[in-house]
Every structure is written in structure tokens, then in C-alpha cells.
């Protein structure tokens, strides 16, 4: 089974579980606060996932370290490449 199919099955399962509890087709009346928590639950999961993504991006942005040696090596390689190519006649 492809990954997409797996994810869709998982989502369908969770969606069915939520619909069964929230739309109450079986008539098992949950206490009112539980119903009130249950209704926005999918939106809550989406917002929580969005917050987690934002926090991860922000954290990795803040802790990304410069690589001095790699930067110098790259500049060196760029100069070599320019010299080589202009020698072969390519105009910059």
C-alpha cells in the first residue's frame, strides 16, 4: 500500500471515530462538556500541528550554525571555477 493510501486510511478512521462520537448516531449521550470539547477537535489538531511546525521552523532558524570552513572552501572553489571557465573563453 502506498504512503498516501496509508495516510488516507488513517484519516478516514479518525474521521469516522470523531463523527460517531460527535454526531451521536448511536444515541449514547455524552456529558455536555465532553461534547463541547469534541466538536472543534479536528480544527484543534490542525492548529496544534501548525503551531508545532512554526515552532520547529523558528527553533531551527535560531540554532542554525555557520560553517566557516565550508564557506571558505566554497568561495575557493568558486574562484577556481571562474578562472578556469574564463580561461576557456566564457564571458562573465
Amino acid at each position, binding site marked *: 500500500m502506498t504512503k498516501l493510501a496509508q495516510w488516507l486510511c488513517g484519516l478516514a478512521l479518525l474521521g469516522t471515530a470523531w463523527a460517531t462520537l460527535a454526531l451521536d448516531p448511536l444515541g449514547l449521550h455524552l456529558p455536555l462538556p465532553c461534547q463541547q470539547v469534541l466538536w472543534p477537535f479536528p480544527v484543534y489538531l490542525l492548529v496544534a500541528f501548525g503551531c508545532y511546525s*512554526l515552532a520547529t521552523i523558528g*527553533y531551527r532558524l535560531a540554532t542554525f550554525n555557520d560553517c566557516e570552513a565550508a564557506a571558505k572552501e566554497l568561495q575557493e572553489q568558486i574562484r577556481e571555477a571562474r578562472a578556469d571557465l574564463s580561461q576557456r573563453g566564457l564571458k562573465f
Partner: protein
Amino acid sequence: MATAMDQLVGFGLVAFSLLLFVYYTIWIIILPFIDSDHGIHKFFLPREYSVTIPVIAGLLLVLFVGVFVVIVMWKNRKPAKKSD
């Protein structure tokens, strides 16, 4: 070390998303279990907004992404005629 601006923006994002998560969690999960005459309820909007605001924000996000894609593709279109 990332630059000071990078660190500021990065940790700012972390703090913002943490605040948002805590506010939204209290709104959705904790408030229904608190009596309606407690003072904490006046810090939170009516419950309907807890669904409408994220949905509208999500739609706006999709709209902006779509507009951005359209603009970039429009700028990159090549003329169909070739100069033979």
C-alpha cells in the same frame, strides 16, 4: 552561531507559537470544564469563533499561496512565437 536577527526571529516564532498553542488549548479543552460564572471566561471569545477564525485564516493562507504561485508563473511565461 546564527546571526542576532536570525535568533531573534527564530525564538520570536517559537514564543508566538507557544502562546498561541496555550491560548487555543485552554479555549478548546479546558474552558468547557469550568463553570460559566468563573472570571476566566471573559478572556476568551465565544466558542463559535474558535472554529471560524482558524478556518478563515487557513483559507486566507491558501489564497495568498495561490496568488503568489499565479504571479510567479505569470512573470515566467515565455512568448509562444519563436524568432526564426
